[in-house]
């Protein structure tokens, strides 16, 4: 008896499905494919190209709102940055919190590591930290890079994706249920029951819906927030739209939004906006810039077709007279089926 996790998903051939004898197969393979999904379904929790000043000679901090798995999975993090000078020491720190509250946030450290950057001046440094648990209750990550001793640093990207260990026994908080083959392989005489048939579907759906997929990201350096949108009157000031691809999805998709912004003073109501553009009747969602992570959903009408199905999304910010508004982060997450 064992919970077997295949290294590749195994697709039964058509001939294996033509009125096969009532045997362990093809059900056992289908159930082990569910184990495969639990181990190897790895959509990006966050994929963020940072917005920051060029040539930083100081530390930078990014707040990345996230929607991690209910299963408290391990995640791997890949950071990419460039230093003008070769072989610099940059300390990479990642923290998590259940509740972001500005300067009063209580952070828990996930890891901190001094990284020696590329041995080539101006070369790309890729730092990977594997298998770091992120709590199911986490709502934001804080990514910090320290200044190099010499020269400057440009922060490029962070990718966070699930890298769970092989499925362990028991029903997971997400609803996923691993498959142990002890009963089905018993003497070739086990009952073929309805729960096994249903488990193939329910576990696959649980995994697909639990591991949110980052569809849109914008995070700028918390230290100074380069874009303050303080010189464009009090109308919404939009960023260029970003195209989000949803291959073979539609006709609509509903995204989960997490948006974080703050003001220097004055009212903070409805100063942050996320909307779809380029489609008649596209929907709009606004959020308060109150220095807490705001949640919402946005239904988008998909354009294009097949693999080229997409939606164009726009972030925008406005201010009140005499005040500044800072968009710190905006993230959109897609759940298959939504």
């Amino acid at each position, binding site marked *: 008896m064992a919970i077997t996790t295949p290294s590749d998903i195994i697709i039964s051939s058509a001939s294996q499905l033509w009125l096969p004898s*009532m045997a362990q197969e093809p059900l056992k393979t289908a159930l082990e494919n569910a184990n495969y999904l639990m181990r190897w379904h790895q959509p990006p929790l966050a994929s963020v190209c940072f917005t920051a000043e060029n040539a930083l000679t100081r530390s930078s901090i990014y707040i990345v709102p996230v929607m991690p798995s209910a299963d408290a999975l391990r995640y791997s993090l890949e950071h990419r940055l460039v230093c003008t000078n070769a072989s610099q020491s940059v300390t990479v720190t990642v923290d998590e919190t259940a509740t972001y509250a500005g300067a009063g946030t209580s952070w828990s450290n996930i890891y901190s590591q001094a990284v020696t950057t590329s041995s080539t001046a101006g070369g790309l440094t890729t730092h990977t930290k594997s298998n770091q648990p992120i709590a199911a209750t986490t709502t934001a990550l804080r990514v910090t890079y320290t200044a190099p001793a010499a020269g400057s640093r440009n922060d490029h990207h962070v990718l966070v994706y699930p890298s769970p260990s092989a499925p362990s*026994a028991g029903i997971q908080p997400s609803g996923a249920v691993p498959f*142990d083959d*002890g009963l089905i392989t*018993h*003497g070739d*005489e086990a009952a*073929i029951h*309805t729960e096994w048939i249903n488990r193939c579907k329910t576990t696959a759906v649980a995994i697909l819906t639990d591991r949110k997929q980052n569809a849109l990201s914008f995070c700028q350096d918390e230290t100074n927030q380069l874009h303050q949108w303080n010189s464009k009157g009090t109308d919404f000031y939009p960023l260029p739209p970003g195209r989000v691809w949803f291959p073979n999805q539609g006709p609509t998709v509903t995204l989960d939004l997490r948006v974080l912004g703050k003001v220097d003073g004055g009212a903070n109501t409805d100063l942050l906006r996320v909307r779809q553009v380029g489609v008649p009747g596209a929907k709009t969602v606004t959020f308060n810039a109150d220095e807490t992570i705001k949640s919402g959903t946005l239904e988008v009408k998909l354009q294009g077709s097949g693999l080229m199905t997409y939606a164009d999304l726009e972030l925008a910010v406005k201010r009140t007279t005499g005040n500044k508004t800072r968009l710190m982060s905006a993230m959109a997450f897609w759940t298959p089926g939504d």
Partner: protein
Amino acid sequence: MRASSLSPAALISSYTGTAANPATIDIPLSYLKHMEATLAEEGGGTFWLAHYQPGQVETATQFHEVSAVAEVGGKCRLTIDGTSGGHSLDTTKQSTLTLPPTDYGDVTDYQTSFSHVDDGTTWG
């Protein structure tokens, strides 16, 4: 070619007695007719069901002997005369009852008419 129905998998909602030695077990009412038919085939005797917990070590070594079936409180209540296998019921782990393997000594003809591995029927 011979067809059969899938074997039932009845999620246990509650029980009386102890987890290791239950006196009664409640499962969804939709299984009442199936359990009554099994009991009728035994002429008022007893029949056995296999226990497992999804996602845990799933074996064919845990059984409950049923001596009576009745509708109680909107559930199908099984009166348990015996338990073997050394297991304990755990509703948080979704303890479930299905049919015994066909090599189990006390499996009934009615129970073997439902799908089992290598029973001569086909998927379809």
